[in-house]
């Protein structure tokens, strides 16, 4: 089970995680015929994790309550531990952005797709 700051916000439906680019933050060298090329290295890139999934609920209002909890978490500007669905831990993350990936859908359940982006807190 995945958690954000110890809370199960996404357990109602399936979801997956992908890690964004890793490596170094490097500025391209300034090139001039009279100067040597110099690479500026600023250190490792902040880790970015993108979570995609679907919230599932029996009613429209319950679905909106699930979405509302994610909305609140995204606006809370809090640093915390993200644990993905395989148990991998990402400490010191900030939930930077959350969005629906389409309108809520009504079949035998109410559901809506979402994408949440977490970024390592640089502080």
């Amino acid at each position, binding site marked *: 089970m995945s958690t954000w700051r110890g809370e199960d916000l996404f357990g109602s439906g*399936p979801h*997956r995680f992908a890690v964004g680019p890793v490596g170094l933050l490097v500025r391209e060298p300034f090139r001039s015929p009279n100067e040597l090329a110099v690479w500026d290295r600023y250190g490792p890139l902040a880790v970015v994790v993108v979570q995609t999934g679907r919230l599932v609920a029996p009613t429209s209002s319950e679905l909106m309550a699930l979405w509302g909890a994610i909305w609140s978490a995204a606006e809370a500007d809090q640093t915390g531990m993200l644990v993905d*669905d395989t148990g991998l831990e990402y400490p010191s993350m900030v939930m930077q952005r959350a969005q629906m990936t389409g309108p809520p*859908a009504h079949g*035998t359940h109410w559901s809506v*797709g979402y994408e949440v982006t977490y970024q390592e807190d640089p502080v």
Partner: protein
Amino acid sequence: MVWSTVTEVTIGSRSIDTVRSVALTEKASETIVEHESSGRSPTFVDVVAVRAEFAIEREVSDATSAAIRVGERGTLRFVARRERADGRRAVVSAEVVVIGVRYRIDGSGFIETITALAYTASSSSPVVLVTREGGTP
């Protein structure tokens, strides 16, 4: 669902004669399929849109005398002649748009198949209504 013996088939004000059968096919037109990180099989599947199509097959004497055209709309209504347990016949109705008219040559003559897509003004209402003759569901 197939009705092999039907009478009083109409689309809007137009009467459709010599109908052999009416078939109703329902198919998911939009599905949601979601996976998780582990495993190949989807862990969530839901049908959020359904397409209901009628196929009205009838005998015609001349395949060039098309009675109905693609794009025409109206209420499809017919009476299923098979007797129900209570002795009353089933009346089937739906708002439809004709999306296909096809012909083939059969041993006994020409066969016309009218394909009509059912729709409803309110998505919470049933797209096809089956009532007992007399009006009760």
